[in-house]
């Protein structure tokens, strides 16, 4: 476990270092991007050194880390706004989207997958397999557009784009949430359904399941207490990876539905080479991935006692 945590820190460090090297590695000066071309070379140089864009990556990382310890994530070189402030406004929105859609996806996938696995080849099994197969083939932005077309353009029952805060208007908030969350969760639900169905199928033919049945255990109880527990290991892995990587999905959905989240911030900062913002966002994203990986590791230990045993052997 200590080794895994060390490895996670190492990964985090490498990502951070790579991010800090971006200004040096990538062509095109940020100073030019911000100030434009009709300023003097001296002005450009002053701008560059003021924002430490020419410092070596380790130094920049050190400055970032010491800043973080003081609650300061730096300031945008374009707008001059504090990065921490930007994040405070936008991060909750993205987190809400991601968490809600992951929850919905898991809640959709689990009961269907377990029931389908219990009766392989049944109508439910074939229908869910077919539906998830189709859902998997629909790109997220296409699904989002289709939902907008159907519910906003044709039926006119939900807003096409935009965002309303919960405190501002709870009903409007939920209305604006539905389509983005659906877009994010349907694809994920298909992924989870297929993974869980395949895994549950493998577990159901295990000897210990036969043994549980030989002692008269009812199907529902086997699925709930035994299959789900064992099958949740790979599921947890996928969910972990997805949550870690959900910034990408969020970017598409936020762009599509014009939601002021992290994804949009990232996209616009890259366009103007706003390095302080890019750096903080990249490190936070990597942190999400790393934390998710460690959490997956931990839950493995809780779910399967053999793992901690084997690790100690």
């Amino acid at each position: 476990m200590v080794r895994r945590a060390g490895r996670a820190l190492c990964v985090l460090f490498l990502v951070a270092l790579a991010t800090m090297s971006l200004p040096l590695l990538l062509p095109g000066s940020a100073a030019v991007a911000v100030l434009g071309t009709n300023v003097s070379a001296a002005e450009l140089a002053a701008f560059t050194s003021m924002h430490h864009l020419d410092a070596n990556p380790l130094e920049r990382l050190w400055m970032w880390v010491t800043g973080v310890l003081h609650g300061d994530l730096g300031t945008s070189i374009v707008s001059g706004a504090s990065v921490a402030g930007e994040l405070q406004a936008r991060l909750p929105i993205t987190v809400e989207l991601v968490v809600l859609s992951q929850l919905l996806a898991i809640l959709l996938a689990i009961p269907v997958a377990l029931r389908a696995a219990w009766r392989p080849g049944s109508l439910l099994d074939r229908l869910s397999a077919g539906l998830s197969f189709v859902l998997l083939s629909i790109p997220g932005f296409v699904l989002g557009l289709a939902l907008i077309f159907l519910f906003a353009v044709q039926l006119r029952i939900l807003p096409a784009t935009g965002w309303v805060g919960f405190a501002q208007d709870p009903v409007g908030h939920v209305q604006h949430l539905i389509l983005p969350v659906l877009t994010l969760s349907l694809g994920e639900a298909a992924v989870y359904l297929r993974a869980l169905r395949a895994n549950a199928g493998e577990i159901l033919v295990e000897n210990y399941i036969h043994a549980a049945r030989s002692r008269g255990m009812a199907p529902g109880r086997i699925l709930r207490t035994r299959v789900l527990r064992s099958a949740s290991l790979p599921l947890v892995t996928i969910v972990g990876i997805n949550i870690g990587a959900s910034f990408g999905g969020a970017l598409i959905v936020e762009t599509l539905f014009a939601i002021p989240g992290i994804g949009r911030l990232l996209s616009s900062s890259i366009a103007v080479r706003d390095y302080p913002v890019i750096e903080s966002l990249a490190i936070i994203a990597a942190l999400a991935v790393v934390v998710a990986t460690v959490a997956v590791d931990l839950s493995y230990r809780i779910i399967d006692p053999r793992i901690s045993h084997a690790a100690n052997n």
Partner: protein
Amino acid sequence: MSLALTAPAIPVHAVPAVSVQELSLGFESNGKMTHVLEGVSFELAQGECLAIVGESGSGKSVLGRTILGVGSQPNSEHSQGAVLLSGDDQLTASAQERRSRAGTRVAMIYQDPMTSLNPTVRIWKQVIESISNRRRLSRREGRAKAVEMLRAVGVPDPERRIDAYPHEFSGGMMQRVGIAAAIAGNPDVLIADEPTTALDVTVQRKVLDLLDRIRRDSGMSMILITHDLGLLTGRADRTMVLYAGRVLEIGPTERITTAPAHPYTQRLLAAIPNVSGTLRRELPALDGGLPPLDRPRTGCPFASRCEIAMPQCHTERPPAVQLAPDHIAHCWAAADPAEGTAP
């Protein structure tokens, strides 16, 4: 013409614990049919121990699981005959009926305790499943019952060990836990499917001794499924030899292991390397393999490997030949001793 009866000690009129009648089973996968069992019949009296002996592909495990009645059951289109548990047919029963019998009327001990105990569930919960699946047990009740069961099967220090996970036990102890789980529901019939194959010999004998003791103390009937003809002496009352899904011979274990009538049983016994008696450097080998299982066997399934096979052995199903009150061989040679070598 004498009618074959069950073991002499058992009253003739008693309802047999298990009665399998002309059971044929087929499984279909990828459009191919596998005929696993063909016309298998036998009875198991109450308190009796019957051994089912066969090599891989004999269908012995499928037979055991069909009697148990849970797990993937053969499609009704592909099964014929009857499997009666004290008179109740398992083949025609609903899944719910079969489930209500599993654990309390018939229970199973598996070959590999490592895979047949759930690695993620503490053993006390697994041991009392046959009871807890039927009525709600308080945690205290359940744990007390688990301690009692583990003590009954000789697991030392049960109060402490009920909280362990399966992998924390040695193979032999794990199998004892498996046995405890099987007998917790106090079943009438215990099916032990190769219960000691995964264990070392010294552990094997202790586990078999335990099974003997349980059977004698509780009066359970037992079906001991094994590939090892050596295990049976002194443990099984009768032995049934299965080959390619057919019964070749059935009779008292004494007779099967010392005076077998079917050429297959004879050859199988001869091929076992012996530790006692004369040293044999060259063992009589039995070449060839099982007949194809994708179609019903015509004639005797062993005919292609049998040294004394006659023409009708390949074409006609052999008759049941009664050699002693309780000993029957399905063999043309045994039917006509002039042509065969059977006693």
